[in-house]
């Protein structure tokens, strides 16, 4: 518990001083939620005179729903890439740069260290996702009309995104304890995040993979339904499994 508190505070200090919050803000909020809708609105205006009228017809009827779905697919890519590369050194750097020598030699417990890291960044990522979704709603609602998008739908989608990214965060945490270089963990998670979407093509099994959460988040009108249950249960199990594996790994690893 003492190690948990010490490390939780340390993670906050570190995230501020090494600009992790700042960079995550740009990847999670600024780009997909602010710049994204803006580009979607301005693009037809800019292209208007370079395109045949028939093609322009496609752009003219963007609804709020379409704009939100466009945000969802943008933010999935941005959030995945930024999370993977900002947080890839979560445990790898601690070990490689021998930062754990003092804490471990003074009896810091690995459970506390790993849990503090996971919980801190799970909260950070969740908050950033929530904020991104609500800011996007502000922009989408202002720039576009039509569709059935509501705050309730938006909130439900954001919860699915939060669960998905917390699951990937636990995998990133474990890989970061496994590899000496964070970059390897970052790339693996990035590839994993994108490649798991392939299963969304197979109707019979797609509901059993975390990426189904992302698919359902864009299903405006029926975001929450019973088909989500397996993916939600599996995601929670994965989180517990990977956090547990990370603790085990950090107990056994040589830190000097």
């Amino acid at each position: 518990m003492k190690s948990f508190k010490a490390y939780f505070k340390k993670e906050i200090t570190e995230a501020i001083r090494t600009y992790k919050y700042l960079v995550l803000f740009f990847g999670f909020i600024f780009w997909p939620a602010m710049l994204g809708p803006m580009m979607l609105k301005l693009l037809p205006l800019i292209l208007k005179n370079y395109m045949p009228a028939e093609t322009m017809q496609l752009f003219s009827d963007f609804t709020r729903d379409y704009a939100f779905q466009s945000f969802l697919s943008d933010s999935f890519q941005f959030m995945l890439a930024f999370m993977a590369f900002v947080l890839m050194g979560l445990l790898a750097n601690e070990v490689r740069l021998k930062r754990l020598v003092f804490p471990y030699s003074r009896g810091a417990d690995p459970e506390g260290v790993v849990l503090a890291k996971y919980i801190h960044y799970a909260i950070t990522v969740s908050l950033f996702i929530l904020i991104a979704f609500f800011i996007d709603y502000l922009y989408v609602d202002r720039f576009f009309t039509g569709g059935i998008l509501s705050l309730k739908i938006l909130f439900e989608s954001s919860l699915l995104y939060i669960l998905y990214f917390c699951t990937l965060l636990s995998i990133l945490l474990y890989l970061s304890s496994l590899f000496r270089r964070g970059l390897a963990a970052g790339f693996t998670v990035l590839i994993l995040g994108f490649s798991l979407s392939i299963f969304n093509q197979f109707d019979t099994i797609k509901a059993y993979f975390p990426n189904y959460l992302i698919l359902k988040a864009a299903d405006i009108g029926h975001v929450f339904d019973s088909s989500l249950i397996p993916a939600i249960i599996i995601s929670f199990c994965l989180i517990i499994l990977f956090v547990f594996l990370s603790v085990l790994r950090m107990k056994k690893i040589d830190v000097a």
Partner: protein
Amino acid sequence: MLKRVINITPIDINFMTSTILSMLPFIIPLLIIEYGLMIFALVQAARNEVAYLPKWAWILIIVFFSIVGPIVFLIIGKKKETENND
């Protein structure tokens, strides 16, 4: 098809400016954040030791690649002293 390129009618321009004007309250925060980040990164680059590239190169990157430049600089550009201790 190419002829259309120069076919901007006064009505079009009117429409464009009015749309952009109506978006201003949303564009301004974006610009503030963008330039805020750039200035912040420039100050950091000026006051700290930088890694991998000479300082002037980083400053060019920060100024000419909006958002991406400053972020890349903040993640990898600042020198970490103890990293090369052993």
